[in-house]
């Protein structure tokens, strides 16, 4: 099975088809968002910026965008602080139940979104958190924590423990060692975790659909209702904006990763 020329040609053909299948569908929203018509026709017969104008002026779209950005920012800060602290606490420790604790921190990643959503919905109904900013923030924080913990823990693995001794031997207190040695070294990991936390919150649909109320919706929820209930090409503009934001941020993650592994 050395891969004769025919086999190779077939494989390359499959590769191209798969590439088209993976990449093109996502990009199709971009031309539609610049369409001058009020439909999803592709390719558009005329061009314009009306959909963007609607997106940035009509209150239901604009509000949901702003809500999403605010919640995502708060979630980023909260999840990054909590997750980084937890990763630091658990770094190089071993005790009974350590595995269960790791499992707990990873659980929101592994458990199907719909299960988390229904569980939170039932609880939030009783606690009066449905449709509140706090409800969104805690729900998204739970989902974002694993990303921060995983990224920071991985970064901490790269910190040579002897550096802590060296810093102490040179006169640095525990806090000074953390600020001047540990934190700078793990900064790329913390940054990656923070970006993941932002994107997780900004993109989240399933749990948000259950936590939302008509008065407080995030952008993905607004998009979901748009696809189900309306034929409104504004969603193409919304999709393009979301694509640009999340792609840019995840690109940043990739950049910080490359930097952190010289």
């Amino acid at each position, binding site marked *: *099975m*050395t891969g*004769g020329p025919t086999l190779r040609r077939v*494989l390359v053909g*499959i*590769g191209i088809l*798969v*590439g088209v299948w*993976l*990449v093109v*569908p*996502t*990009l199709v*929203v971009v031309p*539609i968002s610049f369409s001058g018509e009020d439909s*999803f*026709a*592709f390719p558009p017969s005329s061009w314009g910026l009306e959909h963007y104008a609607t997106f940035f002026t009509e209150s239901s779209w604009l509000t949901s965008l702003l809500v999403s950005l605010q919640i995502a920012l708060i979630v980023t800060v909260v999840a990054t602080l*909590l*997750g980084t602290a*937890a990763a630091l*606490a658990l770094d190089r*420790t071993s005790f009974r139940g350590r595995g269960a604790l790791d499992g*707990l*921190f990873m*659980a929101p*990643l*592994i*458990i*199907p*979104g*719909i*299960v*988390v*959503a*229904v*569980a*939170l*919905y*039932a609880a939030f109904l009783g606690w009066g958190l449905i449709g509140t900013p706090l409800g969104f923030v805690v*729900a998204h*924080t*739970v989902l974002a924590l694993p*990303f921060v913990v995983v990224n920071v823990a991985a970064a901490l693995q790269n910190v040579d423990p002897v550096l802590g001794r060296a810093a102490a031997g040179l006169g640095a207190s525990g806090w000074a060692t953390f600020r001047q040695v540990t934190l700078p070294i793990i900064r790329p990991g913390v940054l990656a975790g923070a970006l993941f936390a932002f*994107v*997780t919150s900004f*993109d989240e*649909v*399933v749990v948000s659909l*259950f936590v939302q109320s008509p008065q407080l919706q995030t*952008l*993905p929820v607004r*998009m*979901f209702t748009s*696809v*189900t209930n309306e034929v409104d090409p504004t969603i193409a503009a919304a*999709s*393009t904006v*979301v694509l640009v934001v*999340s792609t840019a941020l995840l690109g940043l993650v990739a950049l910080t990763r490359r930097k952190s592994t010289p």
Partner: protein
Amino acid sequence: MTVTSPVAGAAAPAPPRAPDPPPGRRLARRVSLLLAVPALLVLLVFFVVPALRLLWLSVTTPEPGFGNYTALVADDVTTTIVLRTLLMAAVVTVVCVLVAYPYAYLMTIVSGRWRGVLLAVVLVPFWTSLMARTFAWVVLLQDNGVVNQVLGAVGLGPVRLLGTTAGVTLAMAQVMLPFVVLPVYTAMRGIDRRLVDAALSLGARPVTAFTRVYLPLSLPGVAAGATLVMVLSLGFYVTPSLVGSPQQSMLAQFISVQVNQLVDFGAAGALAVTLLVVTLLLLGGVRMLTRTRGATGSGIAGGLT
């Protein structure tokens, strides 16, 4: 170098003959463990408690007992949906494996630069927003959408895709592909090519060399990826909701209907618990197969729901 130091006296002398204070560092260690408490509290209150509450609801609402669970088995609609979900997940899994295997093999035989391109392409669905991607599929699969235009141009269309199982499969498999490509590629990269050459030199025909040597060696990767896709497909909500049709709903949609329209937390809880148990069992299997803890986490770390 001078020997004057502004802090020569900084090493404050400890009081002589003081009774030994308790070792301070173990205390510091304990304090640093406290740093995990806020995150743990959030997870306990907003994740563990709600999950346990749901479990509790499933055996207490509307009346105590396992009625909700026995109803799952007895109810025709439920069994139909569960079977449909399993079938759908299986179809998506098969499609993914059939596409991912040659793709991963291609990755092993191209140059490093092209391997990077192929990897980036397969990760695109990870990167892009779920809602944007799903909306794109709705547009593409509509009756006069691009896919139908292409099919029509080659004389195959038009075909109804939006609201059909075929459409959902196409959209779901796209997102799931990386979960198979990555473990299969990893398994293939670990295969010693010389084993295949050895088989050929011993007189095996290329097809035999493949089926008897290469395929078995790459199978663990396939198994790991396939199980992962199966698991994730079972819980899919957004894609089937928007690309599929309500008449062909899957388990996650059914759970959502129980909650939002029927306000039956007992039944929803029982369904969710069942889904969770199946998920964990299958994931446990994957972990036993691959023994790589990171792969699962970082895979899902792409932001799938």
